[in-house]
């Protein structure tokens, strides 16, 4: 357990030349100095966003593909997920805007904006998981997925 915690707490590094790394050129005296930079915070935010997006996508797809079944179980399932759908579209657009703005001008305030939107989409994932998870566990106790 301790080893796991130590491993989990190690700080990863981004390989130079990747999509989340860049370089900054500065004049030091009469010399041009190129310094490699990496944006691990954006990589982490994008990782979390991608996972949240894919999870919501799977929830929405499962409900739509099996709508008749879920509707018979309870119309509330679709109604709740419809509310999540409406909010999810807005939050994804908000993330797109915040991320684009941050990439254009990477400031701590911009990163906070990205992370704030990320928290909203994660909340939607929580609601979506709760709705489908509760229904599946209630109606088919033998399902483990």
């Amino acid at each position: 357990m301790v080893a796991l915690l130590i491993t989990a707490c190690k700080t990863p590094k981004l390989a130079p030349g990747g999509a989340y790394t860049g370089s900054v050129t500065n004049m030091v005296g009469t010399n041009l100095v190129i310094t490699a930079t990496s944006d691990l915070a954006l990589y982490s935010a994008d990782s979390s966003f991608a996972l949240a997006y894919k999870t919501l996508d799977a929830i929405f797809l499962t409900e739509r593909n099996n709508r008749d079944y879920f509707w018979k179980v309870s119309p509330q399932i679709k109604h709740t997920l419809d509310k999540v759908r409406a909010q999810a579209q807005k939050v994804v657009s908000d993330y797109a805007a915040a991320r684009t703005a941050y990439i254009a001008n990477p400031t701590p305030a911009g990163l906070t904006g990205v992370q704030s939107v990320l928290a909203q989409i994660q909340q939607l994932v929580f609601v979506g998981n709760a709705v489908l998870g509760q229904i599946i566990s209630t109606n088919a106790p033998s399902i483990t997925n």
Partner: protein
Amino acid sequence: MPTALLTILPQILQGIQIAINAAPTVASLVNTAKAWFDALFEGGLVTVEQQAALHQYVDGVVALAKSGVIPPHWQVESDPATPAVTPAPSK
């Protein structure tokens, strides 16, 4: 077999079928997420390829959002038709 069980059995079987059908989607989701998070939690080096894959994926989602294209299963659709309630026969 109790009548209640016979009534709910088709629902249970349908639920199992849904879980089986959804399994490939879930497996794909887990594998993708694992690849992205492995590097973070192993404290290793996130390769150029891993960075490119994630960046391209999010860029795609961002482009989709900006274009206004909404996947069908993300859209709020009308409710399924509810079967008409047949009035109980008068006694």
